[in-house]
């Protein structure tokens, strides 16, 4: 009888912990999906703007979904024509798109990094990276993951505005034994 009561209490405790963890997971998940501006912690709820500005949910929920960042797969959104953002304001600006993949082989035991120029140059200008962040010649820039995590090199955008550094395999995408030649 005593044993039974004890087990019951233990079981109850286990279930309540499980319940709490599930509640927490839900709240974290909810936090990742488009908070209204007036509740986002940075907009002043008293500001007239929060009633006028477009809400993230309205704009982002109709775009291809993702599991991190804005929960939008921006590259797909552009490629599949969900959005068609302007490439320039000034008519004389030269628009360059480069279709060239670069393999970065010095990745320790991680799969190699494949850097696709095309997806990057559709959004960015060459001068955004060259030669301020990356030298033009492959292998000349001492990129390392510590610096990237500190917001240098790829980390200047990835982890701040483009998909975050939690998505290891999107960059480390080429298995060591399957290097294309």
């Amino acid at each position, binding site marked *: 009888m005593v044993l039974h009561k004890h087990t019951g209490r233990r079981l109850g405790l286990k279930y309540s912990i499980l319940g709490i963890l599930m509640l927490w997971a839900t709240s*974290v998940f909810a*936090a990742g999906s488009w908070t209204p501006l007036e509740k986002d912690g*940075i*907009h002043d709820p008293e500001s007239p703007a*929060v009633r006028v500005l477009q809400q993230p949910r309205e704009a982002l929920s109709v775009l291809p979904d993702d599991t991190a960042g*804005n929960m939008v797969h921006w590259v797909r959104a552009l490629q599949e024509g969900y959005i068609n953002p302007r490439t320039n*304001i000034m008519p004389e600006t030269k628009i360059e798109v480069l279709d060239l993949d670069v393999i970065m082989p010095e990745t320790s035991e991680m799969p190699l990094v494949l850097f696709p120029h095309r997806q990057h140059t559709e959004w960015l200008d060459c001068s*955004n990276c060259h030669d301020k962040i990356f030298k033009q010649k492959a292998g000349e820039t001492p990129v390392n993951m510590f610096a990237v*995590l500190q917001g240098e090199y790829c980390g200047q955008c990835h*982890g701040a505005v483009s998909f975050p550094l939690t998505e290891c395999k999107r960059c480390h995408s080429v298995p060591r034994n399957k290097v294309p030649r």
Partner: protein
Amino acid sequence: MKITMKILLGMIATIHQTIQAAVLTVIVALLFVEAPVVQAEYADVILNKRSEREGMRPVIFPHWFHRIRFRCKVCHHELGFEMRAGANDMTMEQITEGKFCGMCHDGEVAWSVENCDLCHSGRRGLESRIVGGHETLGPGAW
């Protein structure tokens, strides 16, 4: 003697349960207090180098809104915005003259600079930085 032991054991059990409940409550409270901290949309930028000092709310720049309409290169190449929150030292005067935000916020491409409150919409006391779900915040990086 036996009764005293029983009472003592009972008391210990009660204290044990109370501590257990208290610890659980604290953990639960912490989880719920912690959860709503980072709620801003990924890559929102707070600009407050001058705003509050000059009596305005900080500016909130939403990357998500702008990148639907413009590619990165428009602002970060044509308009000359550095790709580092806090690295752009612009004044309202420059914007009114058509530089930086003023290139589009001219009443034609986007709302004009007279709509102060639409950009200056942040909570008071915020520091200039980029916010969001995941961020790289190296020491001194911003």
